[in-house]
């Protein structure tokens, strides 16, 4: 297991290099020059050259990448061009908000999704199953920003239960978590249901029935435990999706976070901030995939050999 984990972590190095190179490179092809935004119209070319030199934009691209990567590894993410503050500060401010939102949404989707999936599987093909799976289909197809706006309309404007936007109070978390969580809930419920039904058809379940255990006890103690393996791995693989959902939802609810930071920086052509926030999101996805693979290997020894 340790050997597998080491190999799997080492595999992240080329992936990280590739991703960082893509993020570094493509943002240099963006139309719109941040320096132009900083200078007054008709500024002398010397002033422009001086600005280019100050941000290191005048050197060859491979050199810029090398310097950027080197600084990145020491935690120096550069200066934000528009905000004129260290990018690391902006990220450090935004990250906890996104992690809190993403973590709560993940917890919500897991608990509610597994519960719904189990209830649906226990009532397989009955009216309760149909109702849950129908609701799940609709929940997974609503555009999340639209769902968020509807929730604001119903609960903040109509009923006045929660604040419309911002992140000052705990109650401001309820609607954003619900908005992101519903999509994840749908996914978890669907997988839980399928793998419960799958596991219930195995031979060991027949043996348990033959032993005379109560059907409900078999379902909840034995079948569910078996069925949770794919749920756990797929959930870990979807951590990136949940953070991706956070990008949209943060903008809708005007919450501070990586998503708001990214969208704002995109419209201001603020390269260093765009690069850093994209890289943070990408790293979260890579870590999620890593956790998913390790969990799967821990639960199923057959996976470990596959990477050799």
């Amino acid at each position, binding site marked *: 297991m340790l050997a597998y984990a080491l190999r799997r972590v080492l595999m992240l190095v080329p992936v990280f290099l590739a991703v960082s190179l893509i993020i570094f490179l493509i943002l240099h092809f963006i139309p719109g020059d941040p320096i132009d935004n900083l200078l007054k119209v008709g500024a002398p070319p010397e002033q422009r050259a001086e600005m280019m030199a100050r941000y290191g934009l005048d050197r060859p691209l491979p050199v810029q990448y090398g310097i950027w990567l080197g600084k990145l590894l020491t935690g120096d993410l550069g200066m934000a061009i528009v905000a004129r503050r260290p990018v690391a500060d902006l990220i450090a401010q935004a990250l906890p908000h996104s992690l809190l939102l993403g973590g709560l949404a993940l917890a919500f989707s897991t608990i509610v999704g597994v519960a719904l999936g189990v209830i649906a599987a226990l009532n397989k093909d009955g009216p309760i199953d149909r109702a849950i799976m129908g609701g799940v289909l609709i929940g997974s197809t*609503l555009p999340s920003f*639209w769902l968020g*706006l509807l929730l604001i309309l119903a609960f903040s*404007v109509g009923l006045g239960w929660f604040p419309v936007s911002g992140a000052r109070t705990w109650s401001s978390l309820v609607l954003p978590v619900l908005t992101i969580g519903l999509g994840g809930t749908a996914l978890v419920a669907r997988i839980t249901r399928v793998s419960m039904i799958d596991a219930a058809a195995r031979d060991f379940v027949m043996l348990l029935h033959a032993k005379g255990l109560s059907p409900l006890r078999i379902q909840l103690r034995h079948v569910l435990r078996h069925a949770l393996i794919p749920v756990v791995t797929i959930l870990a693989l979807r951590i990136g999706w949940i953070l991706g959902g956070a990008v949209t939802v943060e903008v*809708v609810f005007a919450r501070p976070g990586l998503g708001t930071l990214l969208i704002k920086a995109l419209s201001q052509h603020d390269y260093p901030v765009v690069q850093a926030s994209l890289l943070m999101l*990408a790293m979260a*996805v890579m870590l999620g995939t890593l956790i998913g693979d390790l969990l799967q290997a821990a639960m199923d020894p057959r996976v470990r050999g596959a990477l050799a």
Partner: protein
Amino acid sequence: MSVVETKTAGKARSLPLLRAIFRRPSGALAASWLILVVLGAIFAPLLTPYAYDIQSLKEAFQPPSASHLLGTDEFGRDLLTRMLYGARTSLSVSSISILISVAAGLTLGAAAGYFGGLFDRAVTTVADLTWSFPEILIALILVAIIGPGIAGTMAAIAVAYLAQFARLARAQIMTLKGETFIEAARSLGAGHSHILFRHLIPNALAPVLVSAMLATGDAIILEATLGFFGLGAQPPTPSWGAMMSSGSALLFKAPWIIIFPGLAVAITVVAINLFGDALIAALDIRDRVRKDA
């Protein structure tokens, strides 16, 4: 030879296939809605007396009424008219970019699965890498490069779903290429391109096309999300996402501006999913599509 057979068999089968889809109530409902939306988009100019881009400020912010069935927006433009024209943008942008994505993904994935070796490893590595990233992240990067607008949105959608089709096509080809009829074709002296394009790809097509159809639903949402960020179709071109973008600031003043386009997106995407499910059931290819993988 086998291609000719599939073609004639396909013609004889297409009517029962439609009947099988319409026999399920959900399939019939979904198909009817999709036909309605497509017809509405095509015949938009005949269906409405209003123009989508002529402003009339004294009629702004009207709630739904007899003369404006879904109300008017902040510039006094009829919302239903803009939604019909918006369907043109949203549907064509998402389906054309998914078609591009399928064509590229199918070719790459099929070639990778057929030839194997270093090329296969390169395609698989890149596909796995992009597949593990959320589509919205890939789309935002691409829109950032190309710039906001319809071209950027289409490139973003095409690239975001490429990996999915490449992986699916590769998996299909891998299982098919061991089949006896491929060996037979090879022993008759068929070349690589003949086997690939006349035998393997036609047989791998059904699951790929069905998953492309389901992906079109996701693409409509992605288009709407980019439009909502103001990165999609630019004014005055209506698209369902762009309409919601201007509506979000007016949520409290005129909620219908955002409710109706969102409803159109939601119902259309649910319909595409239900239609896809009916199609999967009718073609009996559930194992080959693997929706949640």
